[in-house]
């Protein structure tokens, strides 16, 4: 079945560095999402992305965050600079269409900011 791949599965970086989380969404999907889950807390929506643009973002999507999908390659979440509170598991998801509520999730990337 369709799969969303996230690379890497775990990333450790020093505070203040830049990090890019990569997501390979399902090939014919058009909508892409990032979610953030701090250990023991809810999985929070960060952003969704369509046709090269951010459609909607939450308050958690700080100015230090950016997303892009250049030329149909990876859908990326970049954090620059990172802060300690950015430590979390980040989940990528994709969907065939916006009205289609089914989301296909990746396994998550655990980000540890030291």
């Amino acid at each position: 079945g369709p799969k969303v791949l996230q690379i890497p599965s775990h990333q450790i970086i020093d505070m203040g560095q830049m990090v890019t989380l990569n997501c390979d969404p399902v090939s014919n999907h058009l909508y892409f999402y990032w979610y953030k889950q701090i250990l023991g807390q809810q999985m929070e929506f960060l952003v969704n992305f369509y046709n090269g643009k951010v459609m909607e973002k939450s308050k958690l999507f700080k100015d230090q965050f950016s997303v892009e999908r250049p030329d149909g390659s990876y859908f990326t979440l970049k954090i620059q600079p990172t802060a300690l509170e950015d430590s979390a598991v980040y989940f990528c998801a994709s969907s065939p269409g916006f009205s289609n509520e089914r989301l296909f999730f990746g396994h998550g990337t655990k980000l540890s900011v030291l």
Partner: protein
Amino acid sequence: GDQVEQSPSALSLHEGTGSALRCNFTTTMRAVQWFRKNSRGSLINLFYLASGTKENGRLKSAFDSKERYSTLHIRDAQLEDSGTYFCAADPSSNTNKVVFGTGTRLQVLP
């Protein structure tokens, strides 16, 4: 291969009735969570189970690791229960990877 099969993909219920959502797993899972997607897109935790059943109001969830399934029962459905529900499970292998169902879109009708 796919590790989680969630069904049904869509469900319509009349107010006051009930039904069950189900996730079948192709491998042994350590624990399962059920989420509901809220209007802001966040996934709200409903249940976390490592085994057995849990109940909260009109919702009840069961998880059988050996039989490789989990269910979410909704009784006396209300209009505000409408939304999309997801299951997510932790494989027993030491991969620290969470696998998700693709969601059930529930519509509660008057």
